[in-house]
């Protein structure tokens, strides 16, 4: 019996007259990789913002790990184990790669209201950070300023930061965006290894990546989910073909 790590219950969001999320319900089950796809303007980013806490829904409830988190801010949801990456890479450019991840470890390892001891030499923080960097394969870049990393490496660093938060759910917002063919290959490979250990919500445009990684796929069109199922079922779904894949076919 698998439980739902994330449960969206009839959430709605409108910007003026435009309904961006329209009575949307969705369960993300423990251990699965759940992809959310949809054409541009379908409301994917707005949905991600509501899950992570940047935006509050107008109606409906969001449950995470058995708790109602609808009214919690971003940082509190992160504390509960909701880790995310951003569509446009967000790393601390002036920090080293290691320090970027060490700060994430610090968030869940004791108080950060400590004012005297240099954080740089806290071995437990650094060890955990190195482990996360090693998982995504950029441990060799640890001492380099994050601002000097390549685009693909920054994407991997963001994933390492999320892993360092000891997450119960990874929320990946278009992790392949802007990546070249080589980088995409590397990212898909890394995510392929992670999916066995983590519950993942993957919002992605790259269909090949989605069909390679996802256990289930939900198709979002005009703020509503028109189909949820295995990649195979979604691919052959008539409504999906008409609304979405129809453009390509």
């Amino acid at each position: 019996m698998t439980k739902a790590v994330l449960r969206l219950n009839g959430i709605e969001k409108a910007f003026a007259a435009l309904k961006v999320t329209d009575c949307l319900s969705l369960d993300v089950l423990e251990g699965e990789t759940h992809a959310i796809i949809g054409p541009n303007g379908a409301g994917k980013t707005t949905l991600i913002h509501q899950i992570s806490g940047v935006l509050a829904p107008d109606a409906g409830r969001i449950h995470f790990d058995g708790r109602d988190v609808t009214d919690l801010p971003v940082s509190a949801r992160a504390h509960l184990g909701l880790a995310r990456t951003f569509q446009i890479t967000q790393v601390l450019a002036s920090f080293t790669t290691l320090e970027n991840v060490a700060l994430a470890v610090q968030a869940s390892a004791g108080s950060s209201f400590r004012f005297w001891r240099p954080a740089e030499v806290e071995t437990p923080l650094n060890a955990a950070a190195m482990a996360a960097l090693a998982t995504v394969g950029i441990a060799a870049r640890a001492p380099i300023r994050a601002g000097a990393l390549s685009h693909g490496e920054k994407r991997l660093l963001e994933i390492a930061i999320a892993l360092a938060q000891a997450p119960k759910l990874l929320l990946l917002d278009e992790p392949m965006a802007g990546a070249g063919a080589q980088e995409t290959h590397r990212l898909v490979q890394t995510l392929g290894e992670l999916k066995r250990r983590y519950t993942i919500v993957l919002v992605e445009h790259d269909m090949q990546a989605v069909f390679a990684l996802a256990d289930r796929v939900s198709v979002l069109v005009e703020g509503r989910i028109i189909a949820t199922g295995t990649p195979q079922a979604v691919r052959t779904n008539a409504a999906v073909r008409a609304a979405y894949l129809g453009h390509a076919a």
Partner: protein
Amino acid sequence: MVGSARVASLAAHWWALPFEERLAVGLFLPLMLLPVAALGLGGYLLVIGERAMILAIAALSLQLLIGVAGLISFGHAAFLGIGAYAAGILASHGHGTLVLALPAAILSSALFALLTGAIAVRSRGVYFIMITLAFGQMAYFVASSLAPYGGDDGLTWPTRTLVFGTRVLKSETVFYYVALAALGGVYVLMGRLVGSRFGRVLRGLTDNERRVEAIGFAPYPYRLTAYVMAGATCGLAGFLLGNEVEFVSPAYMHWQRSGELILMVLLGGSGQRYGPIVGAMTYLLLEESLARFTEHWKVILGPLLVVVALFGRGGIAGIIERWRLGELSLAMLWAACGAIARAQAKRVMGGLRQAEAVAAGALDRAIPRSKASAAAFVARWRLSKMRVGEAVVSLALIVDRSISTTIARWRRR
């Protein structure tokens, strides 16, 4: 021969020290020796030194907000005044003793920071500047209306703070070293703070707030704590400032004073911990030397600060860091200095225009183009005791030139 070998090994040791430590020695050793120099050159030097160190403490506390937390407070002088008033009021009631006055100065500033910061820290950018300015001016007007404690005229302390019943602080030399110790303590404290877990969160928030929030840190408690710490530290500076002159007035809290503190931080460079100390010293020295030069010294100081704001990215510390990273070469600076000296000689011979051209040319080669005109401006001021009219004209020329280089750069893109 043994002697020279020892000197060489000492020198090797010296250069093997990390830059931070060499810098601390370079900053604090002269300050330690200043009282000795004052014996020969006059006690006035001691007073200037005290003042510079006290304002450096205030600037260091503001640096925690501007440089580390990314919050530009325009009401920071309020804490200077609150610290001085707290100790001064106690003294006027006959309780001017260290064990009471120092905690009172620090805690009352911290409390004011907590109350005003609770509101101000919720905002960012221009709004934060305006709110802190408003709170600063509020404190200023409250002090002006404190009729029992002198109101507008200020409050004269009966004496400097007593240390366990003794008047040791009355000695200018003792007080000087107390101020120096306080500055050293605050300098070390700030260094530890920036590198600590707390400092790391603050720096992260300044770098990329979204990222740090997504990791699980709510910005508000961290920023508020930083604000209270900065306020309390500035309260310590206020306590010392009041002691130095045995007087406190609302003018301590005026927004102009807050502006001066910001200038000190920016002039010295907000990116480095030593920046505010260098900035406070430079500001005071400029003020002292320019005031001696003409009574309209603000006419010169103003444009100079404009020039620093326009061209001196990172302030004096920024220039030092650029030099360390090899972006500015010492040889070139040396050549420029030589050219300035030669230009000075030529000017004496009478060829003013030519000399300036030589100096400007040399500086052009030493420092990237856009900064050259600013440096030439400084050089020219040093060469030819510049008059007010001249200052205005050269400032206009600098603005003209910076605009034209910007346009040229923009066209190239």
